[in-house]
């Protein structure tokens, strides 16, 4: 069965996401390695994914960036070529190549994606899809990029997670610019 791997790209030490327009957002995207991610392992991780899943808002903003304003971004070709699934009950049509719309029950749609092979599915967010998947306890692995930053404002990603959600630490690695790459597996 395929694993669901949730990626959290911009996470502060106080548990907040970098929301657009905040100081934290500016801090994150002023770093060259965030603007132009070129770590081969990360690119391979994305390229080898069976599918990329997103909520509607995340899908629309990523689609717009990767097909119009940031076509030279290192993720653009990978994501355009990759299988994408948008979780939405309202979206009627998706223009970006290789996209399907999952409008049914979230658990059933995810289950269908997971069956029939190994490998991994990347969960991009946004926060709504994230929280649904956490509540359903469908996330197998978390990859968090922890920034050396106490943000004070932003979206509290893990609000409302099921109580005492235990994880196994797989690895924690110091990266450039004080970023710590954390990898956790859901303890089952």
């Amino acid at each position, binding site marked *: 069965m395929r694993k669901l791997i949730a990626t959290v790209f911009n996470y*502060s*030490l*106080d*548990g907040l996401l970098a929301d657009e327009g905040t*100081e*934290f957002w500016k*801090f994150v995207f002023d770093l060259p390695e965030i603007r132009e991610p070129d770590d081969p392992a990360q690119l391979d991780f994305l390229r080898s994914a069976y599918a990329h899943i997103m909520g509607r808002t995340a899908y629309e903003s990523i689609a717009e960036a990767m097909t119009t304003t940031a076509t030279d971004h290192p993720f653009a070709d990978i994501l355009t070529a990759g299988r994408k699934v948008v979780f939405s009950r309202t979206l009627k049509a998706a223009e970006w190549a290789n996209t399907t719309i999952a409008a049914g029950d979230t658990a059933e749609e995810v289950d269908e994606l997971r069956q029939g092979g190994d490998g991994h599915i990347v969960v991009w967010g946004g926060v709504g899809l994230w929280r649904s998947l956490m509540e359903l306890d469908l996330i197998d692995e978390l990859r*968090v990029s*922890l920034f*050396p*930053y*106490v*943000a*004070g*404002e932003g979206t*509290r*990603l*893990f*609000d*409302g*997670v*099921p*109580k*005492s*959600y*235990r*994880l*196994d*630490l797989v*690895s*924690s*690695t*110091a990266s450039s*610019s*004080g970023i*710590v790459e*954390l990898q*956790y597996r859901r303890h089952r």
Partner: protein
Amino acid sequence: MTKVVAIMSMSLDGYVADANDGVDEVFDWYFSGDVEVATASATSGMTFHVSAPSADHLRGLQAEVGAMLTGRRTFEAADGWGGQHPWDVPAFIVTHQVPEGWPRPGSTVQFVTDGIESAVARARSAAGPKSVGVHGAQTIQQCVNAGLLDEIHIDLAAVLLGEGVRLFDHLANTPVVLGDPTVVAGVGVTHLRYPVHTS
């Protein structure tokens, strides 16, 4: 130069205790390995069982700290450590009022009632060339707000709590930009140590 270092175990989502003030989840790593680490005090000492990297890290931290600074809540939760902090260093408690029956004769636990700056100053002089360890969410917040911290040391526990007591709450001046951390990977815990940029 004496450093002032916040020391705290925290969940990945930023909590140092659960909604019932419980710390079992964030302290789980103290009991998840097979290397014994005993704390220094003969009377209030504890023995932990941690992984090898965590053991090295804990021993280093204990050797480094020459005085502890905590709040009243930590003091109460620990029953005053029987009058002697487990790390066998003088402990300074920031409080409005000295609790009844304290200070006790022969105890190295002392009380500071005239504010955080004074408490840090007293702990500093007791620590001598060693570091001052600051423990407790509220006390750490006061130190951050007063610009008194040199480093933040977090034992990042592999658990999400969803609610509870937040470490980085009630901060006056956010964002706080930290320096590059040192990273030690243990079992179920990542030991992170960040320099605090004071500007």
